[in-house]
């Protein structure tokens, strides 16, 4: 008396050619196609574009966005997003810099204690912001949009208030020498740190229960709850880890600029969401791969770098970036429709 009737539903759909191409795009995403197109266009526009030096430069510059985009991806996978990543960078930068100068003033000979203390202070501040985001979203049910929008204003205001709008300078020179401009075996330290973060994110998402729970909560929060998953704790973890990754980016940027600034990370929320969405992270949650997001962030960097070389002004760059985000979301919608 075993199943006699389950066969018809499992017959594969017949696929015409158009649908096969669509299926291919669905699988690999639009990103590789966009990447090749952008490479071709910018190579045509500027002969400095396709040089080893520019491309290494591009990778180095992309580090900061990659880190933020990895965090943003976690928030997106759980079905939310984080508009406050820019603010987290600013707060981290300002607070770390202030802590470093304060400790440095007391212990002028122990530069590394000052640096570590400053970084710890920065991480703590970021974790605090992530906690506030997470608690608001997970425990009070505030929509991620409102919560992180509000927090982004609060955080930015705090960063400006703490500094009076003036950059915090006088950081220990070792900080910039190592974390901003240093190299290990010829590889810039920021790149190494970024690679470590990418590996950690991969491990988290692919090989831990928490990572799987991120996808489950984003894919179907009700099902996750009824499966015995502490949905709220998972959301909280996502926003805190997102904030910590943004903080790493903030610290590296501080080291690069050699000062704590409230203006760091102004457009990073938009850029990081664009990087993720272009990389196929669904705004509905439950989908997203680390590798693609890294490529997505590099792609955003590539567009900016290419436009700089082609001497397209920053005003127009804003236009292009915004349009790109909207197009990526449209592509996501179409993909969703195809998936059904």
């Amino acid at each position, binding site marked *: *008396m*075993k*199943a*006699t*009737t*389950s066969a*018809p*539903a*499992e*017959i*594969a*759909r017949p696929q015409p050619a158009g649908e096969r191409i669509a299926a291919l795009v669905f699988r690999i995403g639009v990103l590789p196609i966009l990447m090749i197109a952008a490479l071709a266009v910018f190579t045509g526009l500027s002969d400095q574009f396709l040089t080893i030096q520019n491309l290494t430069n591009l990778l180095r510059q992309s580090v900061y966005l990659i880190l933020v985009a990895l965090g943003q991806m976690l928030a997106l996978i759980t079905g939310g997003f984080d508009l406050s990543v820019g603010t987290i960078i600013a707060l981290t930068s300002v607070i770390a810099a202030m802590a470093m100068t304060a400790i440095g003033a007391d212990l002028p000979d122990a530069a590394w204690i000052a640096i570590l203390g400053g970084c710890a202070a920065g991480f703590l501040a970021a974790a605090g912001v992530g906690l506030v985001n997470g608690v608001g979203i997970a425990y009070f049910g505030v929509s991620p949009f409102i919560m992180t929008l509000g927090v982004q204003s609060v955080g930015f205001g705090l960063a400006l208030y703490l500094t009076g709008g003036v950059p915090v300078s006088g950081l220990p020179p070792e900080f910039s020498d190592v974390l901003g401009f240093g190299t290990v075996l010829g590889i810039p330290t920021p790149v190494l740190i970024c690679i470590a973060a990418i590996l950690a994110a991969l*491990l988290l998402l692919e*090989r*831990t*229960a928490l990572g*799987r*729970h991120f*996808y*489950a909560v984003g*894919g*179907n929060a*009700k*099902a*996750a*709850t*009824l*499966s*015995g*998953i*502490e949905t709220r704790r998972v959301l909280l973890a996502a926003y805190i880890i997102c904030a910590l990754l943004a903080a790493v980016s903030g610290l590296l940027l501080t080291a690069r600029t050699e000062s704590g600034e409230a203006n760091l990370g102004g457009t990073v929320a938009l850029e990081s969401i664009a990087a993720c969405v272009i990389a196929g992270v669904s705004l509905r949650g*439950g*989908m997203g791969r680390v590798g693609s997001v890294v490529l997505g962030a590099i792609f955003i960097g590539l567009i900016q770098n290419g436009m700089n070389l082609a001497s397209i002004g920053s005003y127009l760059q804003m236009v292009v970036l915004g349009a790109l985000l909207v197009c990526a979301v449209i592509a996501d919608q179409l993909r969703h429709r195809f998936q059904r």
Partner: protein
Amino acid sequence: MATPLLELVDVTKQFPGVRALDGVSATLERGEVHVLFGENGAGKSTLISMVAGVHQPTSGEIRFEGEPVTFASVHEARARGISAVFQEFSLVPTLSVAENLFLGDEPRRFGLLQPRRQRAMARDLLARIGFDIDVDLPVGRLSRAQQQMVEIAKAFRGELKLLILDEPTASLSEKETERLFALVDQLRVRGIGILYITHRLQEIRQIADRITVLRDGRQIATVDARIPERELIEMMAGRAIAEIYPAIAHRPGEVMLELDAVSTASGVAGASLTVRRGEVVGIAGLVGCGKSEVMRAAFGADRLTAGTVRFRGQAQPRPRPSAMWRAGFFYLPPDRREEGLVLSFPARANITLPALRDRRHRAWPFGLSARAERATARDLARRVDLADRNLGRPVGLLSGGNQQKALFAKGLSTDIALYVFDEPTVGVDVGTRATLYALIKELAEGGAAVVVVSSDLPEVMHLSHRLYVMAGGRVTAELSGPEITETAVLRHFFDHSAETAS
């Protein structure tokens, strides 16, 4: 003889990958009540959706009043006098009853709405069909039964020749059901044809003229309504009843779950019941009677407002799904796509989701072992008779029966002592049902406590050793063994004490 009102000639509907309806031919006379009978997924809904203009047949012909028709939309069908009342309500909760009744067809003059005339028309309409509802109330404030009545009333807005009712009594009380049947009789006299979907044999006896039985998209027979019940059920299931429902040994042990005067905001009002090891306890009742909510409250999915829950002897003042699951309580939600499965996950990841933190899935030094996870999924899939090749596919693409098997397998992934199956076989084929029932037998005889909450009366009646009947959020009867008969159960479906009290 005059041409029938509606004639289906060899109608077939092919959805991608599934033949939902295969060569159905039937007629509906003026003034006839024609019941469509079959399990979920048999093609009843597909059939009515084509008559109502939601879908178009792949091949075959629909003739209405003698002429072939193709309705591109519900709107077109309605213009010809065909109205459908579907199970899912199409009501806007924030708008008033009157606004809902005329939504999309508001009375206007010079392009402006006429709210007063609309209200009068709404009152008229409701009075004509004998429903008593305040037209100014927002629909969201109405009870489910009242919403159902508004939904039905919407069908009477324009000229009506053919009415389609999809399980209209699923949430109506006895009184409201009687009123609906009186209305149906009235329509019959006026020569309106009625296509009626129901699972209840009693209703068939009461109002049906003819019955078309569907199974797996095929038309099994069209018969006179006086056919014996047993024959009808066996026609629907395609096998003898004894082959579907296994005999489950009854060896009650210690009490696992004890609910005392449990109430929730979602509609449970002081329900008490106990569940023991080694027995299958059924809970039956109308939609909205609280049968699902009471178990959800015990699991922590719905909030408890009063009463006590004791699970394995431990009082649970505020049960939470995560803690209850760890303590050995599995709740299988009734809507697998909405609450049960992460559709984008492969079946494998869905099955192992509750057990990921388990030590046996840990890889050294931390993290998940993909191999261990795969092994777990494979073992569990075997127990529910889910073929290996389904494990890697996104669960959303599997058939309903296979999705349900995956959902059952999920409950086997951790140590569970109490299984609550809320509508365990919604929309699955008979073969899968037999598999799932066999699993329920295995679990209960293995010493677990099992609760089956179901709107499918034969299902709860045949599986349960003891059966609680609920109405109005309270337990109205506890039947056991031979006391469990359809008449006895139905008698307690309606909360008489509440009606006389109010």
